[in-house]
């Protein structure tokens, strides 16, 4: 029991620590690498939540595809992202106060709410059931997601293309 909590705290430390690294690194390429570490920490959280399929998707899509996309964008805009450039704007203290207050409020609310926790075990064959669900119950959102991806792909090509 305490081992699982220890693993949770360790994963939280990795996730939040590298998230802070994303924000405060002076070199934006280091930010991108910290971002990958943070994504992998979240994948560990999914495994702890007994959702291994989500962890696999997280590693594929976030730590793989989106991270590569971000690094490509950094490389293509390299000249202005080097060491000597100020990375944070002048509203950093106001923003810090606002964000800390928001976190305090959220943490207070979340830890004082009485959640109706179910004692049941999760589905044994979750991946199978998820695939069945996507082609039956959730078929409409599934198709909408497909159209959204197509539209995003076409839009990205049109926007980034040279005239």
């Amino acid at each position, binding site marked *: 029991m305490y081992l*699982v*909590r220890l693993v949770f705290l360790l994963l*939280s430390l990795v*996730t*939040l620590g590298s*998230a802070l690294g*994303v*924000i405060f690194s002076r070199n*934006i390429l280091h930010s991108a690498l910290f*971002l990958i570490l*943070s*994504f992998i920490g979240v994948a560990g*959280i*999914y495994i*702890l939540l*007994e*959702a291994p*399929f*989500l962890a696999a*998707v*997280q590693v594929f*899509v*976030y730590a793989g*595809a*989106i991270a590569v996309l*971000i690094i490509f*964008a950094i490389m*293509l*805009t390299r000249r202005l*992202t080097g060491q000597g450039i100020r*990375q944070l*704007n002048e*509203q950093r203290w106001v*923003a*810090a106060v*606002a*964000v800390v207050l*928001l*976190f305090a409020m*959220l943490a207070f609310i*979340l*830890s004082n*709410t009485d959640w109706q*926790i*179910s004692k*049941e075990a*999760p589905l044994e064959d*979750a991946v199978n*059931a*998820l695939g069945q*669900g996507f082609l039956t119950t959730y078929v409409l959102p599934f198709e909408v*997601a497909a159209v*959204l*991806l197509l539209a*995003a*792909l076409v839009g*990205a*090509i049109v*926007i*980034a293309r040279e005239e």
Partner: protein
Amino acid sequence: MDVPLSWYLVLAAALFCIGLYGVLVRRNAVGILMGIELMLNAVNVNLAAFWRYITPRVLIGQAFVIFGITVAAAEAAVGLALVIAIYRNRETINVDEIDLMRW
């Protein structure tokens, strides 16, 4: 179930707040997009935790996480394309220097 649900929720809230801070203070547009990705990740952690603790027999929570990841991927693709287009036209991606539409 060894870890209380609220721990996951507080973790997600912390991740969301760190991402939000990045969005508010970063000057580099790619840095802002990274902050948005962190915020979307926090939302997904919330959904997965609620699935595991409140409706473990119904897969709606996991399905929502998959859709959330899809939307995040679409957002990243379009956002980075915009960054590259702006860089090509204005030679900068620092958002405080892109003030064409500011009055």
